[in-house]
């Protein structure tokens, strides 16, 4: 029978599980995000570097193609920690812009439209909501960071053989761990700016300014007090320091990986607290 003829009847069928309900918001958000041309274009653009890297991996594993090249250059082009660190810098940069582009559209509209009471009046908690929004960004950024990174790693293993994996498996694990840490910071910064700034463009600006501002403050502290520990306040520097430790490449001068990881951990906790304050179904004015 046609819907318009049927009339309303209460639904009394089976209900989905907790995980399926949790994935509702990410599913709808991804659909809406990838309908935006700019997001789609930036995602596609972010795939160019992994494709070039894949070409590089192919080249280094086919000696016959390198016959005519200079021996020094042949020694230089290798798939090692430095190669993966370059891959991570470029993809990490794309992730910053993608987070700034997609993040503001997640929480701000829900706050502006007063939608939170509708979500929280169902069996969907504030933590579920926060984690669902985080999953939107982390999932989206994963597509341009650790997922292609892991594919690249797998490609290299496939071409070089099992011995290469046994020698370098820490590179793959380090890359995933390093990216996950960076994505967490990026996503939380984007969510916090979205929770506090109503206008998308301004929220995107705030999201980007956060990194530049902290970088400037870190540089200022270092120069004024003639120290190097100020770097830990710069999330980009701190995450780079952690990446260097994870991939075991030469690290820049300054605080160690543990200090940098701790600083990032504190930053993540503070961002979670800042977001938690805003994600309430009702605002209590004292």
């Amino acid at each position, binding site marked *: 029978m046609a*819907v318009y003829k049927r009339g309303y009847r209460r639904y009394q069928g089976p209900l989905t599980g907790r995980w399926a309900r949790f994935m509702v918001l990410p599913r709808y958000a991804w659909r809406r995000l990838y309908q935006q041309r700019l997001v789609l274009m930036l995602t596609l653009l972010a795939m160019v570097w992994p494709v070039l890297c894949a070409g590089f991996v192919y080249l280094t594993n086919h000696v016959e193609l390198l016959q005519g090249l200079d021996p020094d250059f042949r020694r230089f082009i290798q798939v090692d920690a430095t190669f993966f660190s370059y891959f991570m810098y470029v993809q990490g940069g794309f992730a910053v812009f993608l987070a700034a582009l997609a993040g503001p559209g997640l929480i701000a509209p829900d706050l502006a439209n007063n939608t939170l009471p509708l979500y929280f009046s169902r069996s969907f908690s504030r933590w579920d909501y926060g984690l669902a929004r985080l999953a939107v960004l982390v999932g989206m950024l994963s597509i341009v960071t650790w997922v292609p990174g892991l594919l690249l790693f797998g490609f290299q293993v496939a071409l070089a053989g099992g011995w290469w994996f046994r020698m370098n498996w820490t590179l793959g694990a380090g890359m995933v761990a390093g990216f996950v840490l960076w994505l967490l910071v990026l996503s939380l910064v984007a969510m916090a700016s979205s929770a506090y700034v109503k206008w998308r463009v301004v929220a995107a600006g705030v999201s980007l300014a956060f990194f530049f501002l902290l970088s400037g403050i870190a540089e200022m502290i270092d120069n004024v007090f003639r120290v190097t520990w100020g770097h830990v306040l710069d999330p980009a520097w701190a995450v780079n320091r952690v990446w260097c430790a994870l991939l075991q490449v030469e690290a820049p001068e300054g605080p160690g990986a543990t200090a940098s990881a701790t600083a990032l951990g504190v930053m993540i906790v503070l961002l979670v607290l800042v977001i938690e304050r805003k994600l309430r179904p009702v605002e209590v004015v004292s």
Partner: protein
Amino acid sequence: MDTVPVVELENLKVRLGRREILHGITCRLGVSGTGKAVGLLGPNGAGKSTLILTLLGFLRPSAGRALILGRDCRRHGGEARSRIGYMPENDSFIGDMSAVTFLRQMAELSGLPPEAALEKAHEVLFHVGLGEARYRELRTYSLGMKQMAKLAQAIVHGPELVVLDEPTNGLDPAARRRMLRLVAEMKKEQGMNLIVCSHLLGDIEQVCDEVVIMKDGLIVHHCNLEEERRSNKCFVELEVTGDDGQLRAALPEIGADGVSEGGGRWRIVLPPGVEVDALWALVARQNLLVRKLTHRRDTLEEIFLKAMGHLAATPVEAAASSEAQGRPL
């Protein structure tokens, strides 16, 4: 058979900041699964919204507890909320989403599988009269359509209990009638329990079976409208000239009760079966001259005004009220 109340409050206290908004409310409202509506009335700041927000688990009680459909709002909030639909007072929707997508998302969040959610979204939009506009973005809707969309999202998952906060706000008379008809259908045909919070006494009177009147964070009156209607009391406003000092003592002769408002003005309650003629005769026996006599059945407005203290209660009612509250007159 053991009946589960829709709402059960035990010494419920809620603080917002330093201010205590609800001062230890205890009551049992409605019976789960009976398809009855409870009206929540009260002036601004009485604590109605705070009570609703506490029942939904949005606010934490500072003392006591609140149970909804037999589940503790804090400890088993998720379980309780899965059986509730909530229509908030203010605009709440995703403006750049079409009504059908919005409702589908809300239904899926409530646990409906995607196909069933889509089907129910269409079904409920036709039910509330938004069938032709279901693919339009919600921000393009008029105020009345938005109210209907809010109602639709509250019932799309077929909840046992629907909490409606000011459902007829901003509606024109035709839309208001339609909304009230839908609300009445929800309880009669779907067996849903309702909690309706409104300032409009007419709305409450039309759709509710039970009424709770709140004032200053307390429940000042709780009555069963069905029983009130059935009791069929007749209220008389009387204005007489002459010495009316003995009238109050004489009223029980005809089983009536009344209170003097001074200047010869009286408010009298006639019990069922006693006609106004009996009062005419009594007044004549008292040698009083009737200047004005109007009579009507009890209305919710009367009950509300009495609860707010704008009307004096008759001595019998005052005694009954004091007895109910356990304190002397």
